[in-house]
């Protein structure tokens, strides 16, 4: 036969198939009557078509597995065979674990279910374990658990592995729980699940975990009672949790597995694994469907979903359901065992409370629990397992984050997270579905790395205790943030908690960038959401409130910041106990704000408490301890305790170098602080060295406009001025002023400080006109902010007049300046007294002017100056 002959056969055959079966043979004979060979071929095809339905049937996953099982079965069970004291009657089921037969027991005379497991007991050890475990199972006695009546092993032929078997109570007319409950009212369904919980709890109390709870194992008998079968059999037969369910029910069962089972973490399996399965059953009972949406043909997708996705709340599928039941299912099915009900009994009790209309223990589910915990830990860089999985929720919200450049100093910390992931990956890889698991782990690792980098930056900035930094090219980080910020709003529609958590993180990140306006916007948004969730989300609310208060200080209003923080401190102690570092952070920020608003003495106890608490919290918190120590040092310096101050600065610097490394921004700031102190004590050489070190570090690390750089430039300019390097100081002061103007605008207090410091250098350089203009500008601005009589306003005005007079000593303007300066002195004398610092700054300016110009009464001014 050639291909044209075949074509004719085929056409005849296909045409015949359209006819009734009895007419087909005649049809092909007629069509191919000119070629009897072809006709016979077509007839044979018709015969084959009619007789063998299974021939070449494409195998589905289920049949593939089933057949593989049959192939592996070494001992063939047949009706009439005797196993133990039981005679097999008829097969009543087959599945992944093996075959189930109805069997007769002679004495006592009854029908039992005999389950012959598929897998063999290959080793002496596994056999011993089977015997021990089956004794435990035989002792389970509860109306809700099908009793194990006997157990044993079937020796395999030709020395093949023996197959374990169990004889269990035969539950007549049993139906799977979910099928039975389908038409029942909600209350009845919940009562059934509670019954199942209580039965499972019985096993737990005797040290047996079911490990394979699913509708087929949670039956309802003819009397309507729940009967749990196959309790503990998984472990008794030494099956790994995956191969246990490797049968035809593989896909069905996977849907009832917990993440720790899917990940193959056998050491992570405990009673809460069963709680998870009960949660899935509950979900099923509530909604009539599985919580997972993955097409069950994709094992990996389903496994991933089980591990990573929070199911749709039941009330979204069945609007009549109470939100409270959403919370119960979410808690029972939490990815992390720690977040689930601690026992089946707890779940049963919770269902009881719901049925009795009592308040529940579960609260609204929080999808970003892990992220929240991450923030709470503050500097816990550990990204592993379920935490990473949950964090990926965030990862998917910011697709642009992958573009973010790796942060040099974050590498070590990333490596830690990666190490954990790798460890987990290899643990998982050792399990059955090695390749799928590995691929999954790799993907997770990749995303965790990405997220790690992002969080790295964020949490680097999450140190709003005075030291804020940026760690990479600002534009890159800034773009990333802006993208994340714009995405967060539409990424979590209707998920306010998720939005709040993410916005808080984004706000923190902006904060770290020194972009306080954006930071405030997002943190404020987050705080409003958290305020509605008090006291459940008290931690977040407190944190957001603290950041907002501190932001007020960062944006210039230190007194208001201190006031806010003081109030918050009282409230926070009502919500949080002192195991929360957040309380120490409030103290630390409060100390800072008090100092910035001039209340140095008041700041000391807060700084002290904060430092001591942070040190107690351990090395993770040493950066914060260091910052608090810096605050303390600043305050003790004012108290005049030089020794304590120097010790505090040095310890702060040490903590910082240990936490961030010697070349970090923070180390630079610490060096600058210590340098400033030492310089004040006249230890010029040491101070100079520290300043140069700080400059070297910060010039590399902070190459954009940044508040911290601006502050440091200010300090540096002042220090260099004191060292007598006026031109260098002028250069620095101009750079400082320009940066402050870009950062804050022309009238901000930081800008005005820079203006004044520049004026100071200009006076010393003899640039009196420029100095006068700058001091006048500072005076006008400070008067608006601080009032006309404030020391700093008066100082700027006095120096402006001084410079004006010195600019052209012989001019009328110089005379006017001297007169004005005298008036200013009289005014200050009246308002503040002769010894007040404001009055004295005027006196000093008057004396300098009189000395420099030989105008005015030098002796008079000299008298006014109080040494």
């Amino acid at each position: 036969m050639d291909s044209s002959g075949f074509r004719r056969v085929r056409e005849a055959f296909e045409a015949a198939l359209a006819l009734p079966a009895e007419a087909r043979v005649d049809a092909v004979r007629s069509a191919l009557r000119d070629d009897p060979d072809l006709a016979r071929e077509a007839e044979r095809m018709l015969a084959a078509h009619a007789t063998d339905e299974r021939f070449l049937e494409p195998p589905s996953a289920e049949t593939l597995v089933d057949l593989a099982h049959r192939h592996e079965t070494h001992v063939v069970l047949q009706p009439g065979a005797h196993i133990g004291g039981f005679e097999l009657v008829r097969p009543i089921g087959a599945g992944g674990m093996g075959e189930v037969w109805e069997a007769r027991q002679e004495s006592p005379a009854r029908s039992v279910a005999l389950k012959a497991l598929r897998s063999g007991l290959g080793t002496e050890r596994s056999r011993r374990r089977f015997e021990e475990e089956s004794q435990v199972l035989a002792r389970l006695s509860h109306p809700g658990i099908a009793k194990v009546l006997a157990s044993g092993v079937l020796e395999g032929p030709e020395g093949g592995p023996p197959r374990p078997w169990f004889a269990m109570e035969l539950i007549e007319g049993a139906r799977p729980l979910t099928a039975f409950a389908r038409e029942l009212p909600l209350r009845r369904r919940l009562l059934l699940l509670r019954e199942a919980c209580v039965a499972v709890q019985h096993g737990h109390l005797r040290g047996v975990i079911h490990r394979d709870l699913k509708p087929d194992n949670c039956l309802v008998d003819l009397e309507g009672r729940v009967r749990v079968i196959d309790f503990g059999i998984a472990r008794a037969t030494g099956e790994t949790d995956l191969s246990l369910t490797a049968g035809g029910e593989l896909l069905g069962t996977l849907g009832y597995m917990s993440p720790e089972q899917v990940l193959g973490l056998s050491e992570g399996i405990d009673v809460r694994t069963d709680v998870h399965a009960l949660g899935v059953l509950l979900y099923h009972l509530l909604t009539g469907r599985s919580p997972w949406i993955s097409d069950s043909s994709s094992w990996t997708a389903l496994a991933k979903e089980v591990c990573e996705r929070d199911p749709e709340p039941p009330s979204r599928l069945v609007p009549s359901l109470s939100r409270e039941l959403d919370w119960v299912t979410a808690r029972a099915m939490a990815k992390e065992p720690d977040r689930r009900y601690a026992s089946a009994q707890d779940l049963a009790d919770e269902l009881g409370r719901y049925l009795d209309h009592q308040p529940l223990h579960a609260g609204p589910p929080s999808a970003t629990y892990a992220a929240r915990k991450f923030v709470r830990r503050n500097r816990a860089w550990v990204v592993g397992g379920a935490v990473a999985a949950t964090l990926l929720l965030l990862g998917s919200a910011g697709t642009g984050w992958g573009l973010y450049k790796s942060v040099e100093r974050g590498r070590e910390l990333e490596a830690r997270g990666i190490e954990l992931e790798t460890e987990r990956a290899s643990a998982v890889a050792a399990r059955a579905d090695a390749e799928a698991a590995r691929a999954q782990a790799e993907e997770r690792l990749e995303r965790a790395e990405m997220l790690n980098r992002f969080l790295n930056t964020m949490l680097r900035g999450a140190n709003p205790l005075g030291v804020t930094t940026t760690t990479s090219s600002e534009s890159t980080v800034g773009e990333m943030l802006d993208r994340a910020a714009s995405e967060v709003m539409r990424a979590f529609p209707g998920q306010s908690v998720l939005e709040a958590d993410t916005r808080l993180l984004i706000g923190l990140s902006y904060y770290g960038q020194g972009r306080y306006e954006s930071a405030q916007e997002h943190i404020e948004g987050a705080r409003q959401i958290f305020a509605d969730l008090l006291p459940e989300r008290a931690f977040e609310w407190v944190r957001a409130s603290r950041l907002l208060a501190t932001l007020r200080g960062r944006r210039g209003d230190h007194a208001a910041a201190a006031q806010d923080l003081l109030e918050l401190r009282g409230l926070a102690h009502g919500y949080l106990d002192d195991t929360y570092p957040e309380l120490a952070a409030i103290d630390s920020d409060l100390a800072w704000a008090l100092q910035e608003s001039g209340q140095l003495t008041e700041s000391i106890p807060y700084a002290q408490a904060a430092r001591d608490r942070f040190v107690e919290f351990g090395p993770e918190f040493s950066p914060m301890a260091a910052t608090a120590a810096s605050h303390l040092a600043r305050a003790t310096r004012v108290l005049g305790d030089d020794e304590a101050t120097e010790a505090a600065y040095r310890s702060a610097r040490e903590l910082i170098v240990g936490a961030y490394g010697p070349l970090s921004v923070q180390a630079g700031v610490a060096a600058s602080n210590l340098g400033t102190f030492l310089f004040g004590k006249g230890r010029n050489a040491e101070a100079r060295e520290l300043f140069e070190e700080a400059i070297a570090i910060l010039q590399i690390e902070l190459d954009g406009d940044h508040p911290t750089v601006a502050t440091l430039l200010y300090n540096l300019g002042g220090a260099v001025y004191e060292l007598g390097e006026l031109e260098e100081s002028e250069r620095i002061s101009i750079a400082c002023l320009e940066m402050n103007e870009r950062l804050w605008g022309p009238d901000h207090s930081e800008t005005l400080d820079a203006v004044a410091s520049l004026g100071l250098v200009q006076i010393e350089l003899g640039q009196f006109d420029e100095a006068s203009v700058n001091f006048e500008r500072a005076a006008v601005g400070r008067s608006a902010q601080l009032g006309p009589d404030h020391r700093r306003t008066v100082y700027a005005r006095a120096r402006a007049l001084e410079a004006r007079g010195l600019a052209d000593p012989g001019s009328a303007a110089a005379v006017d300046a001297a007169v004005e300066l005298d008036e200013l002195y009289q005014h200050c004398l009246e308002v503040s007294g002769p010894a007040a610092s404001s009055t004295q700054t005027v006196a000093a300016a008057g004396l300098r002017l009189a000395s420099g110009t030989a105008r005015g009464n030098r002796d008079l001014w000299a008298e006014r100056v109080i040494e």
Partner: protein
Amino acid sequence: MRHGDVTVLLQRLKGGDESAGEALFEVVYGDLHDRARRMLGSGAGHTLQATALIHEAWLKLDHAGSDPGDRGHFLAIAAKAMRSVLVDHARAKSAAKRPDSRQRVLLDEALAVYADRVPDVLELNDELDRLAELDARLARIVELRFFGGLSIAETADVMQLGHATVERGWQSARAWLASRLGPDGAGPKGAPGADGQ
């Protein structure tokens, strides 16, 4: 298997480069073998491994390319790979070669899956080659359906044929093969069951 390789090969295949098809086949084939070895190395339950083998082979297809054309090519090649793996194994069995006892167990299982639907994989292989001579399209349909496990619709998609065309072709091919392999056929018979030797 690196997806990058596959993507490049698929591109070449689309561009009419026949050698890319062979190279792609090598990649998939090698991957199946490696996969089988690795799974056995992990020492977990056999049955899941067999399932995982098949699932994983299929899973690859999802990653191969978003272009439906790519996917089609890839499905076809995966089906060919499965056929080849199984036939090689059956051949090794009949020659009483035991290259690797652990791998043998796995492939026995995979083979068992198919053996229930066809008396003898080797015979089927030969007859499929003959069918390809008579009607290459029908042989491809069989390869995709039986070894690739594709539905009629998926097969139609991959081959860019009508649903009805594939359905009719499948029935014809199946009947023809059955008539040659089945108990009433003219061809040599294979012993049914996995341990047929």
